[in-house]
């Protein structure tokens, strides 16, 4: 190698290094610039003002706790005790929580010496430790209090409404009613509502104890009441999860069944007509490109909301995806096996069955099972749009903006469902493809 060659190589190397150095600076700078643009475009600086932190606190605390409403109508004086203030969670007539005492003067013990006394004449006294006694009276549509002009920020008082929020609970007084919220950790009435005779009984009592409801056997009765629990709607939830999995299953398998023969038409090796091949490929591209969102919207108009629409939307989108993947797999098959099969005098259909299918099956199965898992997630999302499955229940629960414990319950179920499907598809993949190898 001469000196001239060396200097040329060195020049090349220097140039390469310069380019790499430039890239090492330019790429991060570009990404940084892009983030700066996004920061402005998404108005991230203004996010803090738009964000509603009260909502975040409600969400975080409500998802693992429940509240019992004690309500006095300031018109009739009638008392109401209900979990989450829902009719379905109301205490039966003549019963009330143990932390409410007294007859003419009701004392609600919120805990930590925080007491609410409901007195005659629509008067309410709230005793907060370290603050003193707050007195309020509802007169007509007005609320009068002993609070002065300077109230701490955990009290909001106007002449129409007084709200006191303490760490132990909340008191809201308006002209029409006085409401006391008492918070407790846990998911109340998850197993049985107050209507069920099994409420308040332990598991061992139900399993081994004496018959609680004389008309039914303990275990079947308990299962029945749990299944039909009106608060948590276990029956509907199980059905919804079933619907979601059904959407994913029908969509994935249907797509695979339709895409397999079509993939032959799109594979160079099996489709002699370039025109047909091109048309099939464009069809796959179209089905994939339109995307599940648009298919859902279009199909919902024809079939109405429900799991079938979701299944068909998944089916159509995935036919495009599978068609592309399958035809690529078909193009990569080994020709020798087909030759071998045809040398035995096999007809074309037999050649496909014994020469091609065994080669591509592992690839196809792996893809189908992977999509089955991923479509469970898609079905949740599509369900929210098209109105079926656990996705819809979740959206509805979030939109009501109060049943956060139900939202938490659904989220746990959804994550569990996706993980179970992930595990199941992995297990099936191991069984089916592993068996081929073994």
């Amino acid at each position, binding site marked *: 190698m001469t000196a001239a060659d060396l200097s040329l190589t060195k020049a090349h190397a220097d140039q390469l290094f310069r380019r790499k150095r430039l890239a090492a600076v330019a790429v991060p700078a570009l990404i940084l610039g892009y983030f700066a643009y996004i920061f402005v475009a998404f108005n991230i600086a203004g996010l803090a003002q738009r964000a509603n932190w009260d909502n975040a606190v409600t969400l975080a605390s409500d998802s693992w706790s429940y509240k019992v409403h004690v309500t006095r109508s300031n018109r009739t004086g009638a008392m109401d005790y209900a979990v989450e203030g829902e009719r379905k969670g109301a205490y039966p007539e003549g019963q009330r929580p143990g932390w409410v005492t007294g007859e003419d003067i009701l004392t609600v013990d919120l805990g930590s010496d925080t007491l609410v006394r409901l007195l005659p004449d629509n008067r309410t006294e709230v005793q907060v430790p370290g603050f003193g006694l707050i007195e309020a009276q509802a007169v007509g549509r007005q609320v009068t209090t002993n609070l002065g002009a300077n109230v701490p920020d955990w009290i909001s008082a106007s002449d129409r409404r007084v709200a006191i929020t303490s760490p132990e609970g909340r008191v809201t007084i308006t002209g029409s009613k006085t409401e006391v919220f008492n918070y407790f950790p846990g998911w109340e009435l998850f197993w049985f509502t107050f209507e069920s005779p099994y409420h308040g009984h332990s598991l061992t009592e139900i399993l081994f104890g004496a018959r609680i409801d004389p008309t039914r056997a303990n275990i079947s009765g308990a299962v029945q009441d749990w299944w039909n629990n009106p608060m948590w709607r276990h029956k509907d939830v199980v059905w919804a999860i079933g619907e979601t999995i059904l959407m994913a299953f029908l969509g994935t398998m249907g797509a695979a069944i339709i895409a397999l023969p079509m993939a032959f038409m799109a594979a160079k090796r099996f489709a002699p007509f370039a025109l047909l091949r091109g048309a099939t490929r464009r069809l796959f591209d179209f089905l994939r490109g339109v995307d599940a969102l648009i298919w859902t919207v279009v199909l919902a108009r024809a*079939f109405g909301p429900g799991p079938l629409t979701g299944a068909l939307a998944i089916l159509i989108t995935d036919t495009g995806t599978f068609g592309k993947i399958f035809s690529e797999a078909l193009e990569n098959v080994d020709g020798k096996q087909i030759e071998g099969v045809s040398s035995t005098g096999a007809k074309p259909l037999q050649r496909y069955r014994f020469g091609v299918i065994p080669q591509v099956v592992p690839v196809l199965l792996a893809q189908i099972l992977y999509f089955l898992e991923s479509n469970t997630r898609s079905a949740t999302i599509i369900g929210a749009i098209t109105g079926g499955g656990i996705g819809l229940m979740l959206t509805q629960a979030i939109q009501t903006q109060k049943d956060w414990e139900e939202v938490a319950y659904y989220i746990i179920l959804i994550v569990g469902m996706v993980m179970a499907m992930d595990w199941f598809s992995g297990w099936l993949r191991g069984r089916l493809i592993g068996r081929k190898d073994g």
Partner: protein
Amino acid sequence: MTHATLGAGEMPKTVDSIQTSYMAQVRRRRLYGGLTLLIFVLLMVSGFNIADGRNAGGFWDGLGNIGDYPADVLSEAWEKRAALPGLMVKFFPALIETVNIAAVSTLIGATAGLVLSLLATRGLARWPRLIPVFRRVMDLMRAIPEIVIALMLIFVLGGGPVPAMIAIAIHTAGALGKMFSEVAENADLKPVEGLASTGATWAQRMWLGVVPQVAPNYISYALLRFEINIRASAILGFVGAGGLGYELRNAMAWGPGRFGEAAAIFILLFGTIVAFDQLSSRYRNRLTEGYGQ
């Protein structure tokens, strides 16, 4: 499989007995295959019937109407075809927002996925004892559908692109983390050892020893994810997270009279998805085949 049933080491078998045992085996396999197929067909048919029964409209009734909505949209869009380019310009900012959501969430998700994957790969992990922890974290991030996080964040942060961005980024981090970690498992450890001998820190060993080896694969996966995320960001828009999906829902809520807008959005969305699919598949081919040589 066949060897085991023939029973090596026993008395030499006659051709007949070999044939009968082979035929019995074939019959058994056919029976199992047939049974599996039967169960599968039963599942499909009963599944279809259940789905059909729980749907608001029946499958066979709706089948004839399947073309109605597209026909309505297309005919109205055709009547107003002069306005179509204008509408497309009007919705272009929404399209940019949808693509931006996908791009940012892919960038953030891929970065987080890179770190998570290195922390969860045997031989590379910073804290080998925490590998299972990081793996479970990735599983969890992957398992939560984007819509769950998006809806909760919309409740707290209000509508707009940020909830969708965070939701998609979390899912992307989990999904890419798993794929990245599978690639990183096959990385050559010699550069890492070499760097370790010079006293490089863990971050330096990873950045200089591992990342250059796996970068083409990682970028290829990230591009694939970007394609998926464009679709996801359009769908999340539909539940209130801004962008093209949001505009589509508004246009659809108006029904007839606004089909021109719906058609413009359909075209934009379709065009974007196809264009990015093509672009990324071309670039991914270049990455996997190697370029410059």
